[in-house]
């Protein structure tokens, strides 16, 4: 049995471009609106996932697997980034007793 890909059966690539752009913009609005540093890290993860979704869509669209390998590497970097970011956050909470990013302004001139 030969399964057709989703793009051979009527769904256009523009649908996934719009969907992942909306997800990316939601993540960006979250970074600007929320002030809890943990939510900020989560919104960054959401933006990375939007990019992943577009990469997989184009990989399926063009029939080449390289895009999915790059999604794999993005996941590797995201995991490393989340661990280091969270440990920095735990250390900052230990010193300042808050996760509000507007308190973290010691580098401001």
């Amino acid at each position: 049995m030969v399964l057709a890909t989703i793009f051979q059966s009527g769904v256009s690539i523009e649908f996934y471009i719009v969907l992942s752009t909306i997800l990316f913009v939601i993540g960006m609005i979250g970074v600007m609106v929320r002030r809890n540093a943990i939510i900020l890290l989560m919104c960054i993860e959401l933006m990375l996932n939007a990019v992943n979704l577009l990469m997989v869509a184009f990989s399926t669209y063009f029939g080449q697997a390289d895009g999915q390998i790059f999604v794999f590497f993005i996941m590797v970097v995201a995991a490393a980034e989340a661990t280091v970011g969270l440990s920095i956050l735990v250390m900052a909470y230990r010193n300042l007793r808050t996760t509000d990013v507007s308190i973290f302004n010691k580098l401001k001139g």
Partner: protein
Amino acid sequence: MNLETIAIILGGLTIGSALMVIISKHPVRSVLYLVLTFFMISANYILMNAQFIAIVNIIVYAGAIMVLFLFVLMLLNLSRENEPKSSIMVKLGAVIAGGTLFTVFIAALKDGVAVAATTATDADSIGLVENLGHLLFTKYVLPFEVSSVLFIAAMVGAVLLAKREKQIIE
């Protein structure tokens, strides 16, 4: 029910749960909605015949990273009461900036794809473990090995940062 309807419903659910991540006030609820978003994105991957990426997405993101976030949230003991709030002007500015970025992205990308979709009959098998594993260990073997160095660095850095410093008693 054809594939197009399923794709549109799934896209709407993905956007809805992603919106709930930034709307909900309680941090734990945000984490749970983000897990739901990752499951929805995995469903999108399965719809695009990318089975390996779908499973890895669930295991790595929903299974490992979000549990880490949840542990840190429990450790820090945050609640709705001490959740910092931003002013209405900041919210308005953020939504306007995000809407502008969305418009620019769509305007730039709407005519961007000039190549038609692939018509190869084996196009549905590129997302399987066999194919991706072969590619990962031949063409991309060097980045794969280098990523282990990145993980070692991240692990050492995380342990070093989170370690409680020794109290100096005079």
